[in-house]
């Protein structure tokens, strides 16, 4: 189960619309319960570094990834996932998404149609390397548990 705070969801939706017809991308941070439920409180946009057609691909540089990990350590939040948009396509992970996906992370995908986000869905890899959809909840998950190394 995953909850994205309204301001954070609004932020990534706005970015997805403004970036259309290219794909936007960024990191998601928050807290996690012992049962795996996640509360996303912060998103950070990063540059889509894909050389070539950004309308159907995104890529995040290693340096941006390291900065995001450092932000998580500094802020005491967990880096819980990646978001990106699918301009003109459903919010369903592609095979390219699956092959490049990391375990543990939530992959939030926003389907964008012109000037609006049609729908937003979240996915996580299971033990067999397939994506399973995470259920969105509209109620905040008790943000009492976080850890920092």
């Amino acid at each position, binding site marked *: 189960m995953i909850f994205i705070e309204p301001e954070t969801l609004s932020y990534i939706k706005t970015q997805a619309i403004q970036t259309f017809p290219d794909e936007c991308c960024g990191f998601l941070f928050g807290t996690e319960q012992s049962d795996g439920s996640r509360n996303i409180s912060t998103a950070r946009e990063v540059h889509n570094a894909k050389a070539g057609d950004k309308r159907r*691909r995104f*890529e995040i540089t*290693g340096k941006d990834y390291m900065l995001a990990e450092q932000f998580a350590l500094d802020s005491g939040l967990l880096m819980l996932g*990646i978001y*990106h948009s699918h301009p*003109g*396509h459903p919010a369903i992970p592609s095979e*390219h998404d699956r092959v490049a996906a990391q375990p543990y992370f939530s992959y939030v995908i926003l389907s964008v149609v012109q000037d609006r986000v049609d729908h937003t869905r979240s996915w996580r890899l299971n033990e067999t390397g397939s994506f399973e959809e995470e259920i969105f909840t509209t109620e905040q998950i008790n943000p009492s548990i976080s850890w920092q190394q």
Partner: protein
Amino acid sequence: MATVIIPTPLRKFTNQTAKLQVDAGTVGEVIEKITLDFPELKKHLLDGQGTLRSFVNIFSGDDDIRDLQAEKTPVQQSSIISIVPAIAGGTR
């Protein structure tokens, strides 16, 4: 000893430890030692031939080791070695 930064998705294989201290002379030795200490890391870092997987990048400081001497890149006591998963995707 060099400091190795473990990325969030792989910390469940290092007992949730984000930073490891490793005594090694090269990046290749760093990988060898941490996969011995934490065997479940191995399949996520190395392919069947024992070479670094294409979706895994290793940085020494701010530099990708593929731009240095790859696994033979020297490691100093003060080195910060970061394991960085490649993040990519798209509609098709």
